[in-house]
């Protein structure tokens, strides 16, 4: 059999096995789930071996004589001492280095990218000087840079920042600000909600597009045959399950 056609059958079968979770958690789903974890771990190991060991370490050392690359290899090896209980403490050196370096790299860059830049963009003139017209106030909601939207953004940023204040009681005026903050938060969560729904639906559309493609006669209609097979298997499994009810837990 052609590798593509065989592939179509395997891909369809695995897709349907995962979808069987919709009926309920069942051994077929568990089988596919474990296979998935195994294959992706195997894949990662192969890639790490090929990219790191072959292309980033061995080749440069052998071909260019970059002996200094043995240092990170040594640090990496220290990391693997986690598997040897007696030497596990040596892995701390490796973690100390990468965590320390990561923290150091992050501090100034986070300040520049997410604090200075974001504060800079929030500070906008609330009125603008438009040529000879003198002072104006632009109300266009659809232009995110308009004065009205600048005020709304300012309001949103400050009230939400205030909501996450923990050393002040939310009473009096603070209560009003915190309530504004929570409303802004909810609208943003709503937007996130809408977008997440969109994303999940897109994933389903993607999978179904593949299944539709594989229901074609040129592949031997794996979608249809395998769907029938899996429904049958689930039916048998549920019959078997009824004979031996699972104990609780």
């Amino acid at each position: 059999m052609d590798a593509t056609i065989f592939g179509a059958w395997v891909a369809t079968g695995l897709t349907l096995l995962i979808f069987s979770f919709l009926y309920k958690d069942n051994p077929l789903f568990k089988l596919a789930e474990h296979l998935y974890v195994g294959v992706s771990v195997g894949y990662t190991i192969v890639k790490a071996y090929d990219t790191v060991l072959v292309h980033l370490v061995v080749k440069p050392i052998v071909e260019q004589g970059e002996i200094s690359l043995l240092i990170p290899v040594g640090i990496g090896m220290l990391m693997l001492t986690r598997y040897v209980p007696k030497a596990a403490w040596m892995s701390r050196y490796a973690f100390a280095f990468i965590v320390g370096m990561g923290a150091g790299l992050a501090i100034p860059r986070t300040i520049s990218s997410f604090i200075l830049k974001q504060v800079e963009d929030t500070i906008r003139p609330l009125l603008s000087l438009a040529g000879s017209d003198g002072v104006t106030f632009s109300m266009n909601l659809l232009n995110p840079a308009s004065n009205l939207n600048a005020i709304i953004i300012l309001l949103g940023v400050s009230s939400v920042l205030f909501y996450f204040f923990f050393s002040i009681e939310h009473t009096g005026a603070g209560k009003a600000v915190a309530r504004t903050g929570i409303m802004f938060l909810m609208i943003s969560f709503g937007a996130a909600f809408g977008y997440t729904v969109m994303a999940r639906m897109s994933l389903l559309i993607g999978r179904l597009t593949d299944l539709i493609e594989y229901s074609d006669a040129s592949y031997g209609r794996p979608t249809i045959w395998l769907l029938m097979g899996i429904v049958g298997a689930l039916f048998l499994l549920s019959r078997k399950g009824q004979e031996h009810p699972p104990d609780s837990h």
Partner: protein
Amino acid sequence: MIFLRRQLPLLITLVAGLLFAAQYYVPHPASEQMLTSATKWLQIIGGFALVLGVTSLFHLHAVKIRRQEAGWGYSLVLYAGMLGTIAVGLWADGKESIEGVMTSFGWVYNYMMVPLQGTMFAILAFFIASAAYRSFRARSREAAVLLVAAVIVMMGRVPLGEYLVPLSGDVASWILNVLNASVRRAILIGVSLGAIALSFKIIFGVERSYLGGGKE
């Protein structure tokens, strides 16, 4: 021994942290050269860390198989999938395709890993739908605001929604670009402050849970 096991790692963190935080402000070629080499190292160490991360599963499932715990058959499937993929991968030189022709490793990737991983998350579409029907309720004023905003964005981001309610597209875009952006900005600033505080605590050894691994 205590120095080697406890204090030296903290010292390494301190030095590495301060050095690479300071590097940002120093444009001198010497400092840039240090950054180049160190990030190259980090890349290689990252490879080892990746292997360390995925292999924690080895142990867990090996124990299950050895003790023949409930569901050890699945662990066997996991092992088979992993070893099979590694064998095929090494056979194919770790390449999914060579000169545009798919290898057997590419086959495992395209016809096993891609559908499995893709479908894992596609099933969520169904659960969102059922939750939408059964439990996305306006329990409070806050939840009501959330749901209204969600409905507007869902309408405004698809052609049919814009066709049915032409205004929804613009309103959704305003929600995203102005209201949502302002909230996300505040959250980003708050989270960044938290991240910077955590980084400082790590560098100066106040926070050391990352060390873990073995008793003192």
